């Protein structure tokens, strides 16, 4: 019979306060096979671990049960301790008597009784434990960054500068992301393009970085250290190796009705276009939907004017398959389109715009060359009203429940810039709260309100309507406790941000989890904020939650550090709790293969000795490097041949028996 040691932790008073730990240890001593059982104030402390290792040495233990906190907390600690003493780390089991016992029960007797049952189940399991050895696998020393905005670029540059290869996949024809559309950045008011474009150039010129623009991730397989990713490089109909970015095609293109996405649809562009002047790569792309040649077959002007001979109407999407060790999600965000807020009339009144549209209207490279004009008739606005929290912090289904975090600051920026450039314009801001935590943020907001005399009004806007060709804004002023009605030439909605709509699809491919708002979830909200719970997947920027540029860049750097840490490893130890078929009884039916989400099961013709006879038979074979140990196959197997190491049928049934005894 295996010799088992049981170690009961007091966890200070966390466990001992509710559970009679001595009684648990005493109960353990009565179980056949338990040769030593003791309790200690802090088992995870050095002295506590020493108690365990000493017992392993003295009693020659075959298995260890630690009754303590959740295995998610200290299982690894105790396994390492056992390993130091030469005991296989997988011969250690944890009975969770803190989170699942002492912390939730008040009655000492009841809690002690439950702790004893949990201990008994763990002992029953450990008796059936088998020594397991973790498989080792190599690491592909290349990272994939999905998203080429400031988050993705920062991560990619940090990883590349550490000496590893990085591929960036960007779905748009250029890298740069949302930051490229911004005019100025808070709280320093430096020009967004001036700080972003050098980063873009740096990324393009870095020999360790490879850009896949106008591309999307199509398929992801594999596991940490060894991902295989299929990338769809969409047809540009322009050869990247030939196009010089001269722009002659854009000038001559007769189809000019497509909405210019870069300017938020405030003006139009040609069907063949370069998104913006500093785009990288500086290569044109044909928008197939608006191209006359591709739609009707009649045109071909761009091909004629292209001196470089770069136009290729026959170009097809290209599928590229590459191997990666780590994947970073940096899919970013988009501002919501506030059509659902009928009271503001967005979409109905052209002079009701979103903040991102305002950025373009104020940008020197924007549709108005930086002159702030009303989109309806091009007149200079006199009265500008900002409305905060449009779609954020709401309780109804049309709102996001979270605070979008950046809106208070960018509105202060807009208000300040408008008052600075055009002192004759009046700026009013309707807000619920002004939230400005951050370095130099509150000072910035106060400057807007005090120095630039922006009229901040605490209250919400109920209605915007048109009267005699003028927009009227009706809202409440909570501090003066009255309704206000003011005319407005331009209304700017500080809309909520939401994750990129493609993020959900990507999360499914990466088997990375998401929260209710479709932001990626972290492995731990405080201690592992840049890792996804799925090993080898990291998070950078807004795809994890709303953040401003400095925060995005910090998080991008943190994600890069994690990626570098992973890629610098010579090999990875895999999870040894993998599925394992008993070949002699396997009849090769194929049920297990069908349910395996990782394609880890295949079939091989094997010569087996069955009942003394040699026999050739098709049996299931598990690739332990691919198996993640979910156990789906163990239940699918009709003959019960497939079992999961570390969570075997015998072990779980023994636990059931111990609990139901």
């Amino acid at each position, binding site marked *: 019979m295996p010799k088992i040691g049981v170690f009961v932790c007091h966890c200070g008073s966390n466990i001992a306060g509710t559970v009679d730990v001595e009684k648990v240890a005493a109960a353990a001593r009565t179980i056949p096979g338990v040769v030593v059982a003791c309790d200690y104030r802090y088992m995870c402390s050095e002295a506590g671990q020493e108690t365990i290792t000493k017992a392993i040495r003295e009693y020659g233990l075959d298995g260890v049960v630690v009754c303590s906190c959740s295995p998610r907390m200290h299982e690894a600690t105790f396994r390492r301790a056992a390993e130091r003493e030469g005991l296989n780390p997988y011969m250690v089991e944890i009975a969770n008597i803190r989170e*699942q016992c002492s912390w939730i029960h008040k009655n000492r007797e*009841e809690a002690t009784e439950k702790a004893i049952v949990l201990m008994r189940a763990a002992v029953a399991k450990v008796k059936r434990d088998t020594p397991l050895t973790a498989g080792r696998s190599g690491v592909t020393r290349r990272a994939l960054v999905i998203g080429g905005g400031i988050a993705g670029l920062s991560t990619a540059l940090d990883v590349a500068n550490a000496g590893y290869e990085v591929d960036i996949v960007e779905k748009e024809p250029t890298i740069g992301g949302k930051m490229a559309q911004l005019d100025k950045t808070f709280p320093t008011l430096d020009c967004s393009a001036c700080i972003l474009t050098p980063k873009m150039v740096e990324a393009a010129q870095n020999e360790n970085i490879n850009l896949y623009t106008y591309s999307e991730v199509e398929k992801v397989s594999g596991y940490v250290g060894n991902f295989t990713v299929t990338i769809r490089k969409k047809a540009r109909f322009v050869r990247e190796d030939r196009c010089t970015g001269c722009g002659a095609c854009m000038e001559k293109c007769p189809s000019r009705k497509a909405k210019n996405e870069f300017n938020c649809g405030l003006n139009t562009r040609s069907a063949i276009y370069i998104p913006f002047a500093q785009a990288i790569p500086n290569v044109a792309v044909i928008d197939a939907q608006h191209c006359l040649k591709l739609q009707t077959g009649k045109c071909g002007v761009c091909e004629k004017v292209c001196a470089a001979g770069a136009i290729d109407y026959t170009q097809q999407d290209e599928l590229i398959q590459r191997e990666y060790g780590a994947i970073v999600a940096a899919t970013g965000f988009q501002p919501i389109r506030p059509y659902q807020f009928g009271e503001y009339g967005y979409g109905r009144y052209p002079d009701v715009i979103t903040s991102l549209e305002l950025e373009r209207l104020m940008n020197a490279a924007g549709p108005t060359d930086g002159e702030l004009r009303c989109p309806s008739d091009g007149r200079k606005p006199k009265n500008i009203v900002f409305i905060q929290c449009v779609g954020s912090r709401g309780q109804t289904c049309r709102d996001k429940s979270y605070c979008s975090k950046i809106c208070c600051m960018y509105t202060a920026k807009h208000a300040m810039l408008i008052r600075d450039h055009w002192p004759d314009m009046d700026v009013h801001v309707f807000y619920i709260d002004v939230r400005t935590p951050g370095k130099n943020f509150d000072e910035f907001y106060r400057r807007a309100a005090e120095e630039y005399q922006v009229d901040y009004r605490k209250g919400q806007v109920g209605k915007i309507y048109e009267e005699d060709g003028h927009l009227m804004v009706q809202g409440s002023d909570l501090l003066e406790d009255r309704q206000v009605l003011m005319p407005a030439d331009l209304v700017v909605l500080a809309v909520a941000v939401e994750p990129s709509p493609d993020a959900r699809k990507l999360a499914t491919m990466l088997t990375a989890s998401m929260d209710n708002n479709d932001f990626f979830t972290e492995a731990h909200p405080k201690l592992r904020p840049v890792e996804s*719970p799925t090993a080898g997947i990291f998070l950078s920027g807004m795809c994890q939650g709303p953040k401003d540029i400095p925060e995005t860049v910090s998080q991008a750097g943190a994600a890069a550090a994690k990626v570098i840490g992973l890629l610098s490893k010579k090999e990875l130890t895999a999870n040894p709790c993998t599925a394992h078929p008993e070949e002699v009884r396997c009849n090769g039916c194929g049920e297990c293969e069908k*349910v395996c989400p990782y394609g880890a099961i295949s079939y091989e013709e094997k010569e087996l000795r069955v009942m003394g006879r040699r026999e050739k038979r098709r049996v299931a074979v598990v690739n332990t490097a691919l198996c993640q140990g979910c156990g*789906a196959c163990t239940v699918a197997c009709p003959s019960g041949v497939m079992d*999961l190491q570390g969570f075997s049928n015998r072990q*779980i049934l023994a636990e*059931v028996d111990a609990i*139901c*005894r």
Partner: protein
Amino acid sequence: MPVKESFTPKIVAFCCNWCSYAGADLAGSSRLSYPADVKIIRVPCSCRVNPMFLLRAFQKGADGVILCGCHPGDCHYSTGNYYARRRMTLLFSMLSYLGIEKERTRVEWVSAAEGARFASVMNDFVGTVQKLGPCRRLEDVRCKE
């Protein structure tokens, strides 16, 4: 057999490691109480739970068995909970055929962030089983004196 005055049911809860077990831990660290009758068995995924495990629990005297996994679409192994759901649907209809009230078995989705939900699910389930009284149908008669 007469019902004991204060009936304390035996409840086995299979919890997947990634969502529900973590949810149970969160319930613990948030000090949200639920009856001590619930004993949790950790499994890597809800799809690891063989219907045989539930049958064994009832055979050995469990009064209720609950299986908790990640919400549909959130499975750490992407599809495990869907398999679990289908398998349990079949098992549950067989159990009611055998005369085990369907209220004694349940599949619930609890995420790692839903400590409060874990506690309320357990409170509700234990309450339901308590009302039903002891489950005796599947006990192995050979084990009786």
